């Protein structure tokens, strides 16, 4: 009896062990970062925010487009990494009518989706109309509202008619809403993305990594790296450790700028420092509470020493901006001089507003840059008599609910990373609750006008919201990339939503 029991136990253990040996598999094996150039080259890149699923038509956030746009999904146009200009991608060329309402695109031929289907003008019509339908639920879909109709002229020619001229539309077509989907490839977007891009999804181990493999049937120039693994690290130090110990090749977004010094002096690594679209914004509740008084807002802006804040909170990496515009936008103007560090002026303004001692609810997103910046802001505000009570809210769950939807806050901090999102100041429902008709009119003018008119109007928008102290712009997040010396083609500035893998190589 004992013998049989023992054998049974052993059998159970062994079979259990065998099952356990594939623990954590998800699906396919991971590349390790040792292979270099040639047919089997691979690269491992680290990021901090993991996508919840692969469907950016229904799930918001920057993580999914970062991984999939331009790499797996392509649009008619894309942004050139170095010049920031809109260049052809799936559309070979296009014409714009006199009244600037009609766009005619000539599509590339011989393009196939990863499921084998051909890419034709029908897919363009399908994709654009899908954005406007219920299938897309994210807020950015509004960018397609201006489209009145899409006409298929031939398998390679499509006509898009807008209800009014719009400068932002073509730009928006370089973002996620411009991605081209196959009519037969949208049944499981959350897990199976089907695109025309140079990479296809090979595997996804949740909590660990997404593996992309070169699309052998790609219509264009094949990318240099065959397999790219995108690994996600919640802890910034774990990511830098992984680079130091050789487990990854690139740190795509460094969230621990203090750690940069380890790499600048190390010959094995290269450091890239550029700009992004991420404005770390100190939001004010313009509608209710003490911050609805412009004098209070101006006082706060004068009380903050932005350079000291940047030095302390983000190791001095990053750029100071005076409005909601990064230097890479055509209408950028240095407005940092509008509110110089002047605690005395701040105190005077507060006294004028009748708030010598003020208590504000500082409900921030629970993210590293926000927590760090908030502590500096609170300390600086304390010097002028304002007590800012920091309350970090889980991001996104609670922050979205309390601050973003209900606007239940006095001040908040979060980085706004979407390109050209200054237009949110034209929406009085947006969480800053800033209601200025002049700004709305200017934004409409900018959208409808010529290129020059757009630049002029947008400059005025930027200046107006700065003068109005609608918010305070603490700094612009830097594009901090650290990589092994032999990796080439890394982007200096992050101008779009995607982390473009097509330019990467190993020397």
């Amino acid at each position, binding site marked *: 009896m004992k013998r049989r029991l023992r054998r049974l136990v052993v059998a159970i253990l062994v079979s259990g062990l065998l099952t356990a040996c594939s*623990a954590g598999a998800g699906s396919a094996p991971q590349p390790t970062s040792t292979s270099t150039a040639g047919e089997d080259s691979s690269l491992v890149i680290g990021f901090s925010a993991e996508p919840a699923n692969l469907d950016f038509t229904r799930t918001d956030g920057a993580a999914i487009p970062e991984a999939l746009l331009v790499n797996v999904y392509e649009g008619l146009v894309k942004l050139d990494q170095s010049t920031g200009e809109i260049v052809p991608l799936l559309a070979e060329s296009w014409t714009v009518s006199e009244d600037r309402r009609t766009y005619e695109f000539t599509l590339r031929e011989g393009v196939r989706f990863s499921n084998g289907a051909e890419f034709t003008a029908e897919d363009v019509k399908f994709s654009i109309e899908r954005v406007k339908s219920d299938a897309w639920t994210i807020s950015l879909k509004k960018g397609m509202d201006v489209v009145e109709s899409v006409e298929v002229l031939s398998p390679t020619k499509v006509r898009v008619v807008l209800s009014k001229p719009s400068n932002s539309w073509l730009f928006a077509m370089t973002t996620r809403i411009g991605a081209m989907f196959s009519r037969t490839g949208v049944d499981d977007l959350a897990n199976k993305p089907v695109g025309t891009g140079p990479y296809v999804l090979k595997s996804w181990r949740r*909590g660990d990594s997404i593996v992309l493999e070169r699309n052998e049937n790609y219509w264009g120039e094949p990318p240099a790296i065959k397999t790219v693994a995108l690994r996600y690290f919640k802890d910034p130090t774990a990511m830098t450790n*992984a680079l130091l110990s050789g487990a990854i090749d690139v740190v795509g977004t460094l969230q621990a700028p203090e750690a940069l010094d380890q790499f600048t002096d190390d010959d094995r690594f290269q450091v890239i420092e550029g700009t992004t679209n991420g404005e770390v914004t100190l939001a004010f509740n313009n509608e209710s509470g003490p911050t609805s008084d412009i004098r209070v807002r101006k006082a706060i802006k004068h009380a903050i020493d932005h350079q000291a804040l940047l030095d302390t909170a983000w190791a001095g990496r990053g750029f100071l901006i005076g409005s909601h515009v990064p230097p890479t936008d055509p209408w950028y103007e240095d407005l940092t001089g509008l509110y110089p560090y002047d605690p005395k002026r701040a105190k005077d303004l507060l006294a004028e507003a009748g708030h010598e001692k003020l208590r504000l609810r500082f409900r921030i997103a629970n993210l590293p840059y926000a927590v760090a910046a908030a502590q500096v802001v609170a300390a600086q505000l304390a010097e002028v008599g304002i007590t800012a009570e920091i309350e970090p809210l889980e991001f996104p769950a609670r922050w979205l609910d309390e601050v*973003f*939807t209900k606007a239940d806050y006095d001040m908040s901090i979060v980085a706004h990373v979407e390109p050209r999102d200054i237009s949110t100041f034209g929406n009085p429902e947006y969480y800053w609750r800033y209601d200025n008709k002049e700004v709305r009119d200017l934004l409409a003018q900018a959208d409808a006008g010529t290129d020059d008119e757009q630049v002029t109007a947008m400059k005025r928008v930027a200046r107006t919201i700065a003068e109005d102290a609608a918010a305070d712009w603490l700094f612009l997040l830097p594009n901090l990339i650290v990589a092994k010396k032999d990796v080439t083609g890394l982007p200096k500035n992050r101008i779009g939503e995607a982390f473009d893998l097509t330019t990467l190589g190993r020397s």
Partner: protein
Amino acid sequence: MFLHIVHRTLALVLTLLLASIAVFLFMAVLPGDPARVALGVNATPEAIAALRAEFGTDRPLLVQYLDWVGGLVTGDFGVSYVTRAPIGPQIADRLLVTLWLVGSAMVVAVVVAVPLGILAAVRHRRLSGILLSGLSQVGVAIPNFLAGILLVALFAVRWRLLPSGGWVPPAVDPLGFLQRLILPALALGLVQGAVLTRYVRSAILDVLREDYLRTARAKGLTLSGALRRHGLRNAAIPVVTVLALQLTTLLIGAVVIERVFVIPGLGSLLLDGVANRDLLLVQGVVMVLVLAVLLVNFVVDVLYTVLDPRIGRAVA
């Protein structure tokens, strides 16, 4: 004895049921609308309502609860609102990873604690014994994630002997798997080993004073001989019991270690679920953890009754 087992089984089931109600209600109270979080920044109200209907979160709580529990019993944990993937396989996969981690940590703990504990007990009046005892006390006081951070800083970053984290399934790459397992197992296991050392020490000390040991020595056996013959087996019972009970501490302690070493285990799944307000996922993970804890206690109970009839009788 059989009656006792039946009694304990009923208790287990009842507690599980109560726990499931507690967990479900708790999740229902969680602020932050999961539909909104899943759909993101200012999704349209229609979209939110549609998602709620799709996942049945607009039904009365009791209905949702019964549906969920019914599924649990058949092993169906549902489909996540956020990842759109079935939850059961995800949990199973991650659970296995955590079990590897916890299992190897236990091995480390035992390998450390048994010899050190015995030594500390046998030499408890001498300096070496006192030092060992003191060392184990210090070991208990170190947070396991601190041990992890230090191990990474030394072995992975400074000396580049081992990877700083990550995970590879053993079937895929046995060497890589072992390399990645060593540091986290050490971090989790050494601290646990310190705790265990103290228990081993006391158990052995007690045994040393027992009558039968004195008798054995009187009969002429050396201390180590006597220990080996009689003592170890008797000391093993409480130690094994403690080890099993420590399993729950290890399971939860693994949460932090998984963060430091970027291991895709159950702990990180839980944290992700909470952050994404993935209610069904969190409910599923919590129930699995609760089940593990209760099962371990149950098994220890039953095993003890089987192994030591004195206690079985005393309880009945």
